[in-house]
């Protein structure tokens, strides 16, 4: 039994301590917004915040997440208001199939916390999530829109 703090709530999960945090979140806690894409920290679909740091949860054992504050895509909106990254994603119609976007949004939310006005080079270095639909052009536009305080559609 491990005690996790997810989106501000404490939950007990009955899993082997080596179970990846991703699967505990999805299967034991029942929050399925965080996605499985590769299981080896390559694609970023499973990105959550662990003590504020964007983390690929498929490769972090539950035992290493105990005592830390975990935020998933379901916990990104605050007091019913969508996060500025989510708002920019809607305004710019970023998602195509959408499967990778939870992870992409979590990665971008952390980037904007570290660097409120990221350059293209910052984005290239920090955002390494895979998207097979190829939404990158809209992702970049939406990051800049969110950083500039607006959510205006870029294209």
């Amino acid at each position, binding site marked *: 039994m491990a005690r996790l703090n997810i989106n501000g709530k404490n939950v007990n999960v009955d899993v082997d301590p080596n179970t990846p945090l991703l699967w505990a979140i999805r299967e034991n806690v029942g929050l399925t917004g965080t996605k499985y894409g590769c*299981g080896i920290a390559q694609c970023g679909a499973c990105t959550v915040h662990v003590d504020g740091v964007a983390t690929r949860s498929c490769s972090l054992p539950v035992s290493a997440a105990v005592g830390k504050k975990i935020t998933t895509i379901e916990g990104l909106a605050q007091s019913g208001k969508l996060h500025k990254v989510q708002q920019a994603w809607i305004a710019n119609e970023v998602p195509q199939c959408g499967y990778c976007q939870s992870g992409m949004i979590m990665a971008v939310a952390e980037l904007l916390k570290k660097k409120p006005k990221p350059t293209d080079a910052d984005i290239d270095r920090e955002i390494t999530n895979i998207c097979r639909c190829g939404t990158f052009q809209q992702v970049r536009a939406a990051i800049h829109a969110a950083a500039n305080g607006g959510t205006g559609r870029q294209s």
Partner: protein
Amino acid sequence: MNYVPKMNRRAFVVGSAAFGGGLALGLDIPLGPQDASAQAATPELGVWVVVKPDDTVVIRIARSEMGQGTITGLAQLVAEELECDWSKVTYEYPTPGQNVARKRVWQSYSTGGSRGIRESHEYVRQGGASARMMLLQAAANEWKVPVEQCKAEKSIITGPGNRKTTFGKVAAAASKLPVPEKPKLKDPKDWKIAGKPIKRFGIEAKVTGKQVYGFDMKLPGMLNAAIKESPVFGGKVKSFDAAKVSGMKGVKKVLQVGDTAVAVVADTWWQANTALQALPIVWDEGANGKVSSATIAETLKAGLDAEQAFVGNQNGDIKAALADAAKKVEAVYAYPYQNHVCMEPMNATARYTADKCEVWVPTQDGEASFAAVLAASGLPAEKCEVYKLDLGGGFGRRGAFQDYVHQAVRIAKEMPGTPIKLLWSREEDMAQGRYHPVMQCKLVGAFDKDNNLTGLHMRLSGQSILASVRPAIVEQQKGRDPLSFQGVADAGEHAFGYTIPNLLIDHAMRNPHVPPGFWRGVNINQNAIFLECFMDELALAAGQDALAFRRKLLGKHPRNLAVLNAVAEKIGWGKPAPQGVHRGLAHMKAFNAYVAAAAEVSVTGNKIKVHRIVAATDPTYAVNPSQIDRQVAGSFVYGLSALFYQECTVKDGRIVEQNFNSYNSMRIAQMPKVESIIMPSGGDGPWGGVGEPTICVAAPAVLNAYAAATGKRIRSFPLKNHNLEMA
């Protein structure tokens, strides 16, 4: 569609014009004794539209949504004719079971071949128009005025003497009226909803984690399954030692699935997969265990000069042209196996009892899924149902191929009453693909003494998709696979655009044991590289500009020429490029659309930077320019990932690459700036597709720019095999 009545039972064969001429897709679904005229519970206006008393408009969508925006585009077309208030529009998927029960009133569910909109636009628009006419008639009847004096706009009906009502108020009466057949459709120049960059459905759910994909299915009492199929294609399970893992935490069952796979069922998927990885399995690999990429390449190479080949396109006398040539140019190209790598791996959830088999599945073809449920469950159609879920990527893997549905049903059948969610690991997804086929190509061009191109022979040697997936079609064509000639065909939606006096394009079919599939764009991907790179090679040999050389050969194909000219003009062809930047071009007709790309690249050491792409597309009509823009930009991610990184290598009969660490995909850092030109030319001809065509011009445009930059011509792929990286 063909309705084929049979003796003693009713059945149908699903047909499609997808590959240029009513090819049967081979689904044979017995219709059983149910009432084929069964009506849906909600009063409907024809089969495409339901209007609720509160004015909500529900538009039925038969095709699948996998990110390409089809549901939004189809709804726009219906709403346009319906004259409804777009803000009141929502949609629903009629189930494949309902479609069968109602004699396929919603026609094809197949969402591949870029046909979602282009092959259903007419009947869905008619559906919207018929519904509008029924609503108007109901209002006219109530007011006792001639229907001609009534008008619909934004879900409001007005009539003589300031009469006014809403769609919702007359919908119940309208639903009892006969459905007008073949109503007149609007001229697209009068469109107010269709043709506009309307926001697509479902964005909010996709940014909040609320969208339910197949991977996210939850049913009461559900268990999870992980599966491993023989990694050598065609191999079988010899033995497995269930006792080694059956005591592991959460494990409920270890079972063989068919002859070829073993599955573990557990409380959670992580438990199931952990046990599966620990399970000793012995495979009977059969003869295929010795096949490798090298042996396959040898087989294909022999086909390049083989006597026998199927002709796809021919005019003049190529033999004479080559014999009489003042100059000949020859090149050999090769294209590898590739996996679709949908972000969401294959999955299906099944619940089986003797009375009902239900499956929840992300599918590009609900009817193909339904056929798989019937076959695997052994139950009649009226006891089967499929619930479609939006897809986490499709790209051709989830249409014709329903192997995961078969597996899920077979597992569920062993545990009646318990819902089973079967998820593939990424490794299983990589090992059990339906791969982009391998192909080699030898091209020989002939010039006269004045450097006019007098002949072209394009010999393809490699794998046929249809021989494996739709053998009946190949049999019908006496062994030929017409799909092999996509983009270079003699006519139709994939017609060759150049006029060359002596031409031969033929295919020596060589079919290795690796299962091929329809991979976004299908055979245009390799054919566009072969043809459009070789066009640059020919232009170079003739000492001519690549654009000017093409223009001379495209005189009879103005729409091909128009997209090529459009990208050339916008990229600044013929004008100086920025320092160190070089340009390349490519174009093709595919899925009835005309597409072209111009690329700007620079090369530093072994690093290629793709700075900018200009892409033009003429799909006849543009239903939602904003979504087309996104499909075009995304096409370069799909096409250039394939060009730079992606090859499924065969060793010991199986695929070597198991995950993204050996099968890479582009990231945002590599994304070029894509400028799309959407130039629908209109008219009464067939509409073109959007989801696939542009992919095929991505690679040749960049390869031609690379050759312009370095003088080096690359003829085998991916580029990582040449130690070239995408910067």
